[in-house]
């Protein structure tokens, strides 16, 4: 197997194991740390697809800023198993059943989509991920979503200040 294949499979394994550890960890801080590992694995996948800007910005924004905020909230909430209400065993059972059904549907849909077989992603090629092309596309075709996202952030900040400000 070539380097790209090895990298792909190891990153996938890392992402899946970390995602499962997010759900299984008893300590919420550990869940957040495993989630950060998931983001690293996903950034690795982005680099394999030559989406360089997306990979780095994923690290800066998601793993670097948003997860720190998650950590803040969890550290300040100080959760432990004694104070949290435990769900009944039936809820967990039905949750597993529903999730398993969804997963089996999804896999069967993917397998029976005949035209997806034989297509593979371009690795380490393509112009789309480079910053120059991305910048041009963002300001020509996608300028309305770009600008509207800024108004969305403004309104979210206004909302957060209204709720959070002490006066």
């Amino acid at each position, binding site marked *: 197997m070539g380097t790209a294949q090895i990298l792909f499979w190891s990153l996938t394994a890392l992402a899946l194991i970390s995602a499962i550890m997010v759900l299984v960890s008893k300590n919420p801080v550990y869940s957040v740390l495993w989630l950060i590992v998931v983001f690293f694995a996903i950034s690795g996948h982005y680099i394999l697809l030559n989406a360089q800007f997306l990979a780095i910005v994923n690290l800066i924004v998601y793993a670097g800023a948003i997860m720190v905020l998650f950590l803040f909230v969890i550290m300040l909430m100080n959760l432990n198993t004694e104070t949290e209400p435990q769900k009944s065993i039936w809820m967990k059972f039905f949750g597993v059943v529903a999730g398993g059904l969804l997963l089996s*549907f*999804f896999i*069967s*849909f*993917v397998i*029976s*989509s005949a*035209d*997806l077989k034989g297509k593979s992603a371009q690795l380490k090629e393509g112009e789309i991920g480079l910053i120059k092309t991305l910048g041009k596309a963002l300001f020509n*075709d*996608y*300028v*309305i*979503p770009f600008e*509207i*996202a800024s*108004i*969305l952030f*403004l*309104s*979210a900040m*206004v*909302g*957060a*200040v*209204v*709720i959070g400000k002490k006066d």
Partner: protein
Amino acid sequence: MWTDFLILMKQEMAVIAMIFILLFMKLGRDRSNESFMNTMNVLLLLNLILGFVFNHEGILFNEMFRTSRLIAFEKNILNLAMLIISLQSYSWLKTNKHVPEFYILMLSSLLGMFFMISSGNLLMFYLGLEMSTIPLAAAANFDLTKRRSSEGAMKLIFSSAFSSACLLFGISMLYGTTGTLVFSELPHLINNNPLQLFAFILIIAGFAFKISVVPFHLWTADVYEGAPVAVTSFLSVVSKGAVLFAFVSVLYTVFSPLAKVWYNMLFILSLLTIITGNLFAIRQENFKRFLAFSSIAQVGFILVGISRSSDISTTSVIYFVLIYVFSNLAAFGVVSLVTAVTGKENISDYKGFYKTNPGLSWVLTIALFSLAGVPPTAGFFGKFFLLIAGAGKGNYVLISIAAVNIVISLYYYLRVVKAIFMDANPTPLPSIRTPLMPKLAFIVCVAGAVTIGVVSPVYDYIYSLIVLR
């Protein structure tokens, strides 16, 4: 020419201008709440009038933004609803500390809805949907001192985040199998691929959450009860209306090859919704929860109308949303005034309301009759056209069950009317003097609820907009 952009996007530009005017007014010198509210009401009225002039067709920015006279009319319905809500929340906002922020959040949500309705691309559609949800989640917590408010807002934001995740998963799979996000190119590329069906299910799940279709309705009652009444009326009328417009347009244009699939789905969903909404509304004590379940049932009827895809369906949906604006806002307006003045929200507190407030009780009665579908109020005509639109060969089971449920819904609406007029109460609600702004709102709502049904040019105008689109 850049003036073309301005004219085509005039309603969005107007709302953005209002947001920035508010920000600058807030940063400037200290003003009283009254001056803010008066300014805003005048600006919203100008915005509504602006929506009626200079309507053109056009597509901008590589199909990110489409507009037509129909879309402009839909946006104007939302503008009208916003104006009425702003007039009605006068008493509540008079003593509130964060008046400009309230308007900024509502206007941002409205802006998101505008972009969602006029999007021609799944990306812009998703962004508009998010932009309409997030300020509402902040606004649902506006009663900062009450715990119920925070509980409602938390439920709203968690549920809407999860449903947005489902929607996004569906959109990404649709993009993965077809290779394009543009609405006009998607129908040609949708060919019963199983993965596309899965994507379709997830996208419908995302929509169904926002319009409170059963079984995605569990957030509705708690959020409607916890949020302040102005935000509840915004959620129930404007948010639902906008997502319904987008739903109809997406379903008919993007998913038209899958018509047989979603007919069965809408059959089951509409039955479930109508029956669940009716059954739960019968038992409610809190007026806001009652109106929440009644609105769930109304959405069920709209789904009946959507189930046959044709121009008449679109017309009847838009017509029904217009009537629903008037009747629902009249009911919420009375609740808003009573809650702001006395703080009481239960139906049993409204016993003997007629003795102390005859005018308000007539407004509430007309609103409830219109919601129930009693002729000659407009609600009857709305439901009538919906059922006609839903009827077609072989659809009679659905129509007959819907008709039976209309009769069942009459029970719980008339229960409230009975409480107002016929029950005696040793401690009735005090006599409330309605200030000028809510009075204007009530006049508009009652006029709408009574006359729109019998004034036929309205329906013909909407039909002409759709046929000539």
